[in-house]
């Protein structure tokens, strides 16, 4: 079945530490992939996207993600986390034709000061 999976429900990191949030997809071809962030009480903000080409994509707020076809993954990274990064992060993909986005279940990030 076509799906997007985020294996980690909660992650806690210390401010200034590096961060990696995992995302895996199940799809027979290369999907369009996205990372969104949702702060408490807010809508979703697009961090970055991958359609094709360079497998390392840069986004806003210092985030980057790397597409790895061999691992069916699109992990989000940040070298140094700030307290304001505490939020819920969603990985999403366009799996197939049409415009539907399939979302992962989200990873709640907590940042310890």
């Amino acid at each position: 079945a076509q799906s997007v999976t985020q294996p980690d429900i909660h992650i806690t990191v210390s401010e200034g530490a590096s961060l990696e949030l995992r995302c895996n997809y199940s799809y027979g071809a290369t999907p369009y992939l996205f990372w969104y962030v949702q702060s408490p009480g807010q809508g979703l903000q697009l961090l970055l996207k991958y359609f094709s080409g360079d497998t390392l994509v840069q986004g806003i707020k210092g985030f980057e993600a790397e597409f790895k076809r061999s691992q069916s993954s699109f992990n989000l990274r940040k070298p140094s986390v700030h307290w304001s990064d505490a939020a819920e992060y969603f990985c999403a993909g366009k799996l197939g034709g049409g415009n539907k986005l399939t979302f992962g279940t989200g990873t709640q990030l907590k940042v310890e000061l």
Partner: protein
Amino acid sequence: SAVISQKPSRDICQRGTSLTIQCQVDSQVTMMFWYRQQPGQSLTLIATANQGSEATYESGFVIDKFPISRPNLTFSTLTVSNMSPEDSSIYLCSAGEADTQYFGPGTRLTVL
């Protein structure tokens, strides 16, 4: 990127009533969508709002329960009809261009 606003931002409604949520985009967009985010869960697509024609609903969602209008390229409404407590969710509008979707701030609905 498109800037999207929604009204109301939140509401508390009684069982059996209906609520209409408005979504306004700051520019003309080809695609508009409505999602539901139930408490503690991820987002699920309800339907694609098509300009000038009936909305396209995902499996499990029906027009009688979630009627949608899209009178032009910048505006859409979602109505949650005959509400029950199970409809308590965040409802998000999104607008898409060039395979990318941008989201509104959401409407937090509580049904008593």
